[in-house]
């Protein structure tokens, strides 16, 4: 990334840096070691040794992944030297994973975005000019010679607020950013849902009423299919499950096409063909129905529409023998799992999982899993699936105006709506998070109902996170105004017009959040050190931006919005009094405008500091002591001082056993009917099977000489967000492609050979790792590598990018990306 920097501003930057920390361990030292030195291309030292002198400890919440584990940051001489686990948070149970510890390197990453920038080169070139915040806001509002501003676009689109797309990744400050989206009034919101857990959370949602958690601390039998808790760490599931396997209280059956670390920790591993889990679950259901192993009483009292489903399972003959052919598993294993599950029910868990959709059958699979769990009766029960309790929080002021000119969400309805078929071309149901892939594809194919011309991106990396990278690049190039708010110069940031640098999680206080579960709590992220360089937290960014754009955009609204014009006219016209006299209007136009503007004032959600907002939200419900606890300890829940105590050198009690919220709904689902919705008629109207059924198109097929590409996680990385973290790269330098050892030998491929993986949409290159942990017809490599942003010193062209190869296949219900439906070729290069 080339940055033209005025000398004065650069020097200012370095002076500001060196004021932070005067000891030998100082921020300047940390950044000085950004050169690639030493003999392996790894920086010599960017770890800090903790000292025995004075230090402050600040309670914060990690943001290296979605789990928000509670941490305590140790600050010495203004430098964060260590992140320790905060033992008081029930959800994370006194731990920090490798990424949690490596948060220091995210803070002191030499490549991080330091100041606002605007594009001066071609889109995607990565040529930017450093500007001040004021200049950046000005560029967003009025554009430059290279790109138009919001004012011009809205003017030309006649105040169609939906001409701007807002997208975000998950984070605690996402809430703040979303306030801007809601106030702005666009209908186009896309988030990570459709490239993450949309199908699983919605499927459990429609079947059980909510996406549940699993009580792995008490379950006796756990089926973990396609979920890799040993590497895709989720709190507290990871903490609980692996202490009890291998004969120490729970039996874990891991079902996965590849031998993950979870399989290594399990008591049994079943190597299933990718994407065929639905057949497995249907066969399990068949066994427990025919052998009458399921909890008949529970089903009678708590299921809706079970008879239709039961009839279908029996008529279609979803036997283990049938499933064995499709899944590649032994029929005897399927019988065994079904019988063992029901023997331990209701303390059996068919683990819901959390991951991205892997196959087009995913929605039906998750429904079948939810139903199977219900057959055992382990819903809202100790040792089964639980909903837990959510501690409430107060509300805060927001703005959500209605703009008359704002079009509805940019989805495409089918031209000839047929009964029993999906109403949209993208999918059957459009959710809040939308369907990213189909939206993007329609956008570049010019199938939008109106012009979408600009986009705001927060903590989101479309260039890396969704299949078919080429198309994402096309979309970003086509967008006329791209504003990114990020901490790192990611691949997406390279395509931006305006880059706004966010302060990392250690440099800001974020909205207080309530964490529901068996042991609920409220937790808060407290600012550890002041934002470095010229970065700002989202709250301040939004404050500055809205202060700049609110009034000018209001002018445009007044010009085109008929409802607003009508209201103003009504407020300022003379009325007829009781005695037919003309009553003068009570307000002048200016006064009426000022009053109406209060509903459209974009600055309202950002008037207070985050600390003030948090205090208000907590104090109103729990009082001053909660505010104090959140500030000092980062955590609060009622009776915490009574309940929280250490029970060993490693573990603590958060709630006494009899106070934990295992059952909150009388052992019943949280659906409106309080029953497990086995058959859902409304789905049929949209072209979706009303209960899970197998379709031939779900079968696993790989052509001769090709391989099914699987993607997944390692515990040391969070997708593409950590690719530049030097300490994490120290653990795994780059990703390798897993190839079955016999296949590799046959192809003459050895460990470390460079391999090109290619599909119809593209190719990528990475080194080979021959192993027996993956089937001969499958290959795997971990997601998040192969970045193309030159600004990322260590991530640039490091490893292979799975999304350059994965086809943009979407499942039919929500349009979520099916990530395991691509067959690829490999060759040695």
């Amino acid at each position, binding site marked *: 990334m080339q940055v033209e920097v005025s000398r004065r501003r650069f020097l200012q930057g370095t002076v500001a840096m060196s004021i932070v920390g005067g000891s030998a361990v100082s921020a300047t030292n940390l950044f000085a070691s950004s050169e690639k030195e030493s003999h392996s291309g790894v920086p010599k030292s960017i770890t800090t040794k903790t000292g025995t002198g004075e230090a402050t400890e600040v309670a914060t919440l990690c943001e290296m992944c979605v789990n928000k584990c509670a941490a305590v940051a140790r600050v010495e001489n203004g430098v964060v030297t260590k992140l320790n686990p905060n033992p008081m948070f029930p959800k994370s149970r006194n731990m920090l994973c490798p990424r949690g510890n490596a948060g220091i390197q995210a803070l002191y990453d030499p490549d991080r975005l330091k100041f606002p920038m605007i594009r001066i080169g071609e889109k995607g070139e990565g040529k930017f000019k450093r500007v001040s915040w004021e200049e950046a806001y000005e560029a967003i509002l009025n554009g430059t010679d290279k790109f138009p501003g919001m004012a011009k676009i809205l003017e030309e689109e006649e105040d169609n607020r939906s001409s701007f797309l807002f997208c975000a990744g998950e984070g605690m400050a996402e809430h703040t950013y979303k306030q801007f989206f809601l106030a702005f009034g666009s209908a186009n919101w896309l988030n990570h849902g459709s490239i993450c857990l949309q199908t699983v959370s919605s499927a459990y949602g429609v079947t059980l009423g909510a996406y549940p958690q699993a009580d792995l601390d008490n379950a006796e039998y756990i089926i973990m299919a396609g979920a890799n808790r040993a590497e895709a760490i989720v709190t507290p599931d990871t903490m609980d499950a692996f202490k009890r396997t291998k004969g120490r209280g729970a039996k874990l059956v891991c079902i996965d096409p590849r031998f993950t670390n979870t399989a290594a920790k399990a008591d049994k591993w079943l190597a299933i063909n990718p994407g065929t889990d639905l057949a497995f679950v249907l066969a399990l259901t068949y066994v427990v129905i025919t052998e009458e192993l399921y909890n008949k009483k529970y089903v009678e009292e708590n299921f809706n529409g079970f008879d239709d489903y039961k009839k279908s399972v029996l008529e279609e003959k979803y036997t283990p023998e049938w499933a064995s052919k499709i899944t590649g598993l032994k029929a005897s294993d399927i019988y065994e799992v079904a019988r063992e599950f029901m023997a331990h029910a209701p303390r059996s868990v068919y683990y819901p999982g959390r991951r991205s959709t892997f196959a087009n059958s995913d929605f039906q699979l998750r429904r079948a899993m939810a139903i199977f769990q219900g057959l055992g009766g382990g819903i809202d029960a100790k040792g089964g699936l639980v909903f837990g309790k959510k501690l409430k929080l107060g509300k805060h002021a927001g703005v959500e105006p209605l703009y008359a000119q704002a079009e509805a969400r940019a989805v495409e309805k089918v031209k000839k709506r047929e009964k029993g078929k999906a109403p949209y071309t993208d999918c059957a149901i459009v959710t809040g998070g939308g369907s990213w892939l189909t939206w993007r594809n329609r956008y570049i194919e010019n199938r939008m109902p109106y012009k979408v011309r600009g986009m705001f991106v927060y903590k989101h990396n479309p260039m890396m996170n969704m299949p078919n990278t080429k198309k994402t690049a096309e979309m970003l190039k086509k967008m006329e105004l791209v504003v990114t708010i990020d901490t790192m110069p990611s691949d997406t940031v390279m395509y931006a017009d305006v880059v706004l640098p966010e302060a990392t999680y250690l440099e800001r206080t974020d909205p207080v959040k309530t964490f529901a579960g068996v042991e609920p709590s409220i937790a808060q992220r407290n600012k550890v050190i002041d934002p470095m360089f010229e970065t700002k937290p989202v709250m301040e960014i939004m404050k500055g931006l809205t202060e700049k754009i609110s009034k000018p955009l209001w002018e445009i609204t007044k010009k085109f919005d008929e409802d607003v014009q009508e209201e103003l006219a009504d407020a300022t016209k003379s009325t007829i009094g009781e005695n037919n006299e003309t009553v003068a209007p009570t307000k002048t136009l200016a006064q009426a405008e000022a009053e109406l503007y209060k509903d459209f004032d974009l600055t309202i959600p950002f008037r207070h500091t985050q600390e003030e907002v948090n205090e208000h939200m907590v104090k109103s419900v729990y009082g001053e002591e909660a505010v104090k606890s959140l500030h000092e300890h980062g955590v609060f829940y009622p009776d915490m001082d009574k309940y929280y105590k250490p029970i060993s050198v490693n573990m603590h009690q958060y709630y006494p056993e009899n106070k934990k919220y295992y059952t909150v709904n009388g052992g019943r689902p949280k659906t409106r009917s309080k029953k497990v919705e086995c058959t859902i008629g409304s789905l049929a109207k949209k072209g979706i099977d009303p209960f899970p059924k197998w379709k031939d198109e779900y079968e696993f097929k790989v052509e001769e000489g090709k391989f099914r590409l699987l993607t997944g996680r390692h515990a040391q990385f969070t997708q593409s967000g950590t690719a530049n973290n030097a300490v994490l790269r120290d*653990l795994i330098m780059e990703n390798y492609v897993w190839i079955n050892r016999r296949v590799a030998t046959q192809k003459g491929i050895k460990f470390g050979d460079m391999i090109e993986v290619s599909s119809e949409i593209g190719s990528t290159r990475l080194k080979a*790792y021959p192993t027996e942990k993956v089937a001969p017809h499958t290959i795997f490599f971990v997601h998040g590598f192969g970045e193309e942003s030159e600004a990322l010193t260590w991530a640039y062209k490091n490893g292979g990018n799975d999304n350059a190869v994965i086809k943009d296949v979407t499942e039919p219900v929500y349009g979520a990306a099916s990530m395991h439906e691509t067959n690829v070729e490999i060759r040695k290069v």
Partner: protein
Amino acid sequence: MKLHDYVPYRENISFGFEKTPVTIALAGLTIGLILFYLYGVFNFFAHGHHAYNVTREHPWGFLVASYEFFVAVAMGSIVTAASGIFFDLHVIKPLIKRLLVFGLLSLFAGFTAFLFEVGHPVTMVIYTALSGNATSALFWLGVFYPMFMLFSMLTFISYAEKVGPTKIFALFAIIFANSSVLTAGSIFGLLNTRLFSSGIFYQIEFMATAILGGIFLLTLITVMFGKDEFIEAVVALKKVSIALLSLLLIMYIVRYLTGIYGSVPGKVEAIQHIYQSTNFIVFELGLGIVLPLFVAAFGSQTKIGAFCIASFFGLVGIMFSRINLVEGIQVVPLQTMKIKEYQEVPSLITSYTPSITELGIGIGAIGVFILFMFIADRVLELDDEL
């Protein structure tokens, strides 16, 4: 009290030499080696310890082998000479002064290799004295070698200038020489972790190869410096060498067999790797043991030409035996599990090759040694007055 009373230097010092093809070749070789040595030293001062190829799994490299080689040759030379003094061995008498001096020079050459191997030589000198550790073989090395050096020097001065209790000095020189070599062997023998060397083998092997080294050096000197008066000694020592070489041959055979018998993990891989490599079979065994043994046993009883060539190869063999030792103790990985997902399972650590710097210092020291021998020969009066 004149210097001449203590150091027998010549009256006329000249550095000329007879220019035959052999001596010219030798001079050229020496200069080449010295340049190589200087290159290595320069590299070391430029890059420090990073100039070496030693790694976490393979911390000892070529310099350790080189050091052990030089001190072995030193011990052999000095013990031979000191024995000649103490036991009144008439046939050795003409050699004594030369052997003592050259032995000392070999010791110095070895020390330079050692000083470059150890990362902090000054710290070593200070703390070995202040806080030495009696269970450490290296500590005792630091005790015995200075004593060895001291008594060798005393023996030389006493013998050359005919002052002081020469025989007592000689006796102590022998005692400390043996202690030093035994300690050097114990460095490897006391490593319980490294089954390749743990035990008594290397203590004894060091002793035997040290004496042999002295004998080989002596033979080379005889021919290099054209000392016909030494031939009688060489012929006598040839017979000693037959005994030692036979002993070593038997030791190697038995060791190999016991090493592979029963496949003890940690031992069998190392023994097999080393004993089945060309480094061992061709250089250490073939050139180092079998060839000299053959020549000594079946060669001419009076002429030493063939034995001289065999001596050269014998010294090469001893150098390779040190190299094989250093390799052998480190070839079996201690951490047999992977520590990262994306790596191959640790197998034998065979990837070590000495870096140019290590070779420069280790082999180049030979050139320095030859140069010092030449200077010593010219400056000091090393022949007996007739």
